[in-house]
């Protein structure tokens, strides 16, 4: 019996020829990640062990959630992380002004490569599956244990295969595909499973679009999302990978718990209504809903391609008088490139606010928290109760194109209402 890409990567890191779903394996880990919220807890637990880090090079620390520090307590948390990094001479500690949202930053910096096993004390660690790596979120204590051991345990997940065929309409991309998929299978539709995204539409998708899709695998309950590496992956890794990489692919006779086929030729831009990422609808059905804020950013859609699409919609337009547009480039590098390409100019001209990279409003931290009764369209990944602020505020998840068009019209909008593709 063949193996899936997920099974192959886990087997390789467990030093085994063959693994099968359900089996518990101990795997070597290549990269460990934590942020300003989860690292302090991990550090506390790790220090209880009183042993050295298995490899200071393997640990990546990114204070991105409440930074630049939003209050005294968050400043203390960031300080804990900073001091730990200095004490242990962690080379991959990223300070404000040189950082980015972790899941945009690690691939960009070549810290995660194809074939890796990555655990991060952040649920959206699954983003790196887009590079053909096995990457999954864990808690702080799991991370602390791996900081000491250099390995962790996994139950090998059964794989679900998603095959996307057809030709995407204008303004439809990775975000729409994943919102639609979660809408089809539900937020527990992939519980404990690997989501493997395949088919001609995925092959045609840019790396940025692939990151967006894998990023939201956890929103369907998945352990990881993954895409087979190809020439686009190779081109992306070229010049940035800091370690040798290895391409794994699923065998033709690999076993899947289920196979879903979606012809997405007719797919419209999607919006997930409150309070579940599975409440996906075509935007055309909800254009009567007015908004108070539009957020373009986050580890889901804060990459260069996302900012380009948003700028394409916003160029020469003005943000609706009743709307606050907040644009947050995912990393310092993306920010700089967007500046060079004139995208930042477009956002400022339109009347938007542009922030230094941070998670900020995505988790209701700072930089755009919502008041009672307010509504935001956001390119983020969660619209749970209270996610962006007051428990009675609402978040509508959408692509950068839809968020930008909605910012202009003051209500949820199809991008073609604002501009021709």
């Amino acid at each position, binding site marked *: 019996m063949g193996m899936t890409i997920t099974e192959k990567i886990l087997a390789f890191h467990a030093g085994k020829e063959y693994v099968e779903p359900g089996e518990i394996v101990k795997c070597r880990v290549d990269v460990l990640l934590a942020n300003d919220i989860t690292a302090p807890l991990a550090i506390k637990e790790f220090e209880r062990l009183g042993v050295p880090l298995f490899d200071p090079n393997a640990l990546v620390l990114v204070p991105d959630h409440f930074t630049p520090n939003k209050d005294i*307590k968050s400043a203390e948390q960031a300080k804990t992380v900073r001091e730990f990094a200095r004490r242990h001479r962690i080379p991959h500690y990223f300070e404000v002004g040189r950082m980015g949202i972790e899941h945009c930053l690690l691939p960009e910096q070549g810290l995660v490569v194809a074939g890796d096993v990555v655990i991060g004390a*952040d649920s959206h660690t699954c983003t790196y599956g887009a590079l053909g790596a096995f990457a999954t979120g864990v808690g702080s204590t799991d991370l602390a244990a791996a900081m*000491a051991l250099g390995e962790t345990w996994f139950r090998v997940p059964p794989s679900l295969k998603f095959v996307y065929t057809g030709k995407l309409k204008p303004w439809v991309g990775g975000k729409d595909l994943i919102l639609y998929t979660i809408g089809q299978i539900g937020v*527990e539709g992939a519980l404990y499973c690997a989501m493997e995204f395949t088919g001609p539409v995925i092959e045609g998708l840019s790396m940025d679009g692939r990151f967006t899709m894998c990023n939201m695998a956890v929103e369907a309950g998945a352990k990881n999302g993954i895409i087979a590496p190809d020439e686009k992956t190779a081109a992306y890794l070229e010049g940035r990978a800091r370690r040798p990489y290895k391409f794994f692919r699923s065998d033709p006779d690999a076993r899947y718990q289920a196979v879903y086929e979606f012809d997405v030729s007719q797919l419209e831009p999607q919006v997930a209504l409150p309070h579940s990422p599975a409440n996906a609808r075509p935007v055309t059905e909800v254009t009567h809903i007015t908004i108070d804020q539009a957020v373009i950013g986050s580890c889901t859609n804060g990459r260069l391609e996302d900012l380009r699409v948003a700028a394409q919609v916003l160029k020469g337009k003005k943000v609706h008088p009743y709307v606050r547009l907040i644009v947050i480039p995912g990393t310092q590098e993306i920010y700089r490139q967007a500046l060079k390409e004139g995208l930042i100019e477009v956002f400022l001209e339109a009347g938007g606010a542009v922030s230094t990279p941070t998670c900020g409003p995505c*988790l209701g*931290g700072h930089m755009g928290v919502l008041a009672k009764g307010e509504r935001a369209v956001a390119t983020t990944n969660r619209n749970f109760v209270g*996610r962006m602020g007051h428990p009675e505020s609402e978040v509508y998840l959408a692509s950068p194109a839809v968020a930008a068009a909605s910012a202009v019209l003051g209500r949820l909008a199809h991008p073609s209402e604002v501009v021709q593709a």
Partner: protein
Amino acid sequence: MIEGRVFKFGDHIDTDLIIPARYLNTSDPAELAKHCLEDADPSFAKEVRPGDVIVAGVNFGCGSSREHAPLAIKAAGVACVVAQSFARIFYRNAFNIGLPLLECPDAPRIPAGSRVRVDLQSGRIEVLDTGEVFTARPIPPFMQEIIAAGGLIPYVEKRLKTR
């Protein structure tokens, strides 16, 4: 053996409901416990007593990897969570920090506010007022090892010594 009152919640209770991000500027369990589940049930943190049990539907603990979620529940005094299913990161985290979880397909039929006796070993859940018995899936052997060691960190300490 656990004995306590049942606090019921529905499906997909996410980590933002369990402990909203606005309180994540600390990892002090006592601080977190004060706000545990406050957006789902504002009176929960005040009413829950040591030994009480949370009973919920599917996908409990979905969302973020924040270990602050099981920490808040544990520090609030909850002795165990019984649900139809759990989100996977929450599942690992809870055992790692010493909060036991039981998967019980019939969880929604356990009456709210009732007193229950829970046996973690066998997965037997008895409603004391009526005598009705529910059965949860046994805790997997690997998780039992972690519980027996007293959590993941003591488990790792043991492993480090033997290697």
